């Protein structure tokens, strides 16, 4: 035991110093009024009171984050479809798999810049194609429009993570014992039945993993939104994470930013718990 403790101690120490202590300090800070040049004073629930009752940007950012999160299953569903295709006898499946995966290793900043160019009202590829096809006659200001800005960033985000979800689901598909499908075919089960009775249940762990990662991704999509729209127009694409950054480093309100961070943390814990319950209570493991 002593030897085990010795080997674990360095990692645990780092975990304590860089994760636990800052987390505790952040919670304490959320109950204080503090700036880098003034000592902290205890203000109790003031920051939370402001957040819940006097900050409509917080609610807008929360709503946008939840929409971002709710859109993630679309990406997972598309990734599942692609995974099913490349797992079949389709000619060139390996090439398609590589092409789809290529988006994932790209730096998110590069992805944001590329999509910003593509969405550009003046010379962007998307407006060019839509106008050439006669679908629109005036260019659409995708990133400058309240109606289009958030969906546009969601599309860019989905494109980037599609490859990763595809690989995870493909791995899950390849681990399904083939004899289950053979037995089902022998029994005369149609394709849709094999999908819903065998494939999806057996993919539960992989789907749970994709769900959790997609939830975390929607709360952490700082760099994509910051580069594409900086939360605009008019907080139309503001996420909790971008708002926290602006409050802390733009408005120099580290105390209030700490309260926002605590709120986000509580929300994330609640969502992770709900996801676990929805998947059967054992992180999606098969029984």
């Amino acid at each position: 035991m002593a030897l085990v403790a010795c080997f674990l101690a360095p990692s645990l120490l780092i975990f304590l110093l860089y994760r636990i202590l800052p987390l505790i300090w952040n919670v304490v800070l959320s109950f204080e009024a503090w700036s880098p040049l003034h000592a902290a004073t205890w203000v109790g629930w003031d920051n939370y009171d402001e957040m819940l009752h006097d900050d409509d940007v917080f609610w807008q950012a929360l709503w946008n984050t939840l929409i971002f999160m709710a859109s993630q299953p679309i990406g997972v569903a598309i990734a599942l479809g692609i995974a099913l295709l490349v797992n079949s006898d389709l000619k060139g499946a390996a090439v398609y798999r590589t092409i789809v995966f290529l988006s994932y290793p790209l730096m998110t900043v590069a992805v944001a810049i590329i999509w910003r160019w593509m969405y550009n009202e003046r010379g962007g590829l998307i407006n060019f194609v839509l106008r050439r096809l006669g679908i629109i006659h005036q260019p659409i200001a995708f990133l400058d429009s309240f109606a289009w800005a958030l969906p546009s960033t969601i599309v860019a985000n989905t494109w980037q993570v599609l490859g990763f979800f595809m690989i995870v689901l493909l791995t899950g598909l390849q681990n399904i014992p083939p004899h289950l499908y053979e037995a089902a075919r022998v029994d005369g089960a149609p394709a849709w039945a094999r999908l819903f009775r065998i494939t999806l249940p057996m993919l539960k762990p992989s789907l749970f993993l994709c769900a959790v990662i997609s939830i975390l991704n929607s709360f952490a999509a700082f760099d994509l939104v910051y580069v594409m729209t900086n939360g605009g127009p008019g907080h139309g694409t503001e996420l909790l994470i971008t708002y926290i950054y602006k409050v802390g480093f733009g408005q120099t309100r580290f105390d209030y930013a700490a309260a926002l961070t605590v709120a986000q943390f509580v929300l994330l814990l609640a969502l992770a718990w709900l996801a676990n319950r929805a998947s059967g209570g054992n992180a999606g493991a098969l029984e």
Partner: protein
Amino acid sequence: MKRRTFLAGTAATALARPAIAQSSKKLTFLSWNIVDQADMFKRWFAAFTAEHPGVEIEWLDKKGPDLPPFYQTQLAAGTPPDVLDLQGGIGIEYAAQGALLDLTPYLTAHPDVRARFNQDYLNNWVWEGKTWLVPFYVAKTLLFYNKPLFQKAGLAGPATSFDELLAHAEKIGAGGTDQTGFLTLNFDWLYWALFKMNGVDLLSPDLKQPVFDTPKLVEVTEKLAKATAGTAINKISWTGRWVEPLGAFASGKVGMLNAHAPAYFFLKGQGAWINQDTLGVAELPGNWSVPTLHGYGISKGTKNPDLAWAFVEFCTARKQAQEMADSRRVLTAYTEVDNALMGHLEKDEPLAHAVLATQLEHTDKLCGNWPLPNDSRIKDAFYPELQNALLGRKDAKSALDEASRKVARELRRA
């Protein structure tokens, strides 16, 4: 060498190191996105350290959006840079937070330094009767216009009133595919001259109450929103930062641009069509403009305040200021230096001369710069609501009412 001699020598060197370290001083200088002047700064640092033996200068440069977060973290760590170059209203904000050193005693002790500068520009950094920064380089907004597009639209010259400006923009915007009439930069209140020319102020004279929510501003905002919904005003005016709006004007498809003088050099680099015959420069109607100033400040947490001041005094001296002006083609608010620069440009670069001439005129009609301790929060309270109105998400009255409520809340918290 004998072992004993070697050991004695090593011990002597080890003991001397602290003494050597104590006799050298380190000065950190944080600049705002000016890494293109690296060679010039290296010459300055060499000259300064020659005059101040034992001083070492560390230079850090950050892009605009990165500098404030970097400075905050340095403040929190207790290691703020000694001297910093700050843009716009953020200097007063840091002064109000207690991050900067009051430079008034230094300026009082060195009246020759104070006298160097255009006082209208220097007064932009006065808060609570004290001066917190001194000018590094200065600019203010002007109207750039595309002469061929003006001729095509049958317009004789720049507008002399707000309504005429919008009428010009509408005519140009109606003139062709993807053409728009007017574009403005929107960061640091650069658009405020559009409101000031209509008699609208943001805050009361004591800076304690919002006073902008008036029928006049509602009317102006409605006109701007209508123009933005059409082709008169380019939507990027309200959503872009620097590259996109300037790129749009440089493409030759926008009739007018409200931007500050440094934009000229970006436009010239991007727009092959730009020359003395095709690019016009003028003041906005009413000669109102918004300054974008860069100033030198000293962190209150500096361990060497007098040395930091000596560095600032050195950087703003005639030789250095002239070098900066000539190298970057920018005004320094050092009156003699700026006059000398204008003299060179009149012969060598007439168009640049015309652009910079607007920077020296009507400096008594600067607007859009309020000495606020919470400038960034006021901006965050006001601008998104203005965007809501200009981009058609809300009607002007509701948006400005909401903006007024939010600005009042921030002023109460200050």
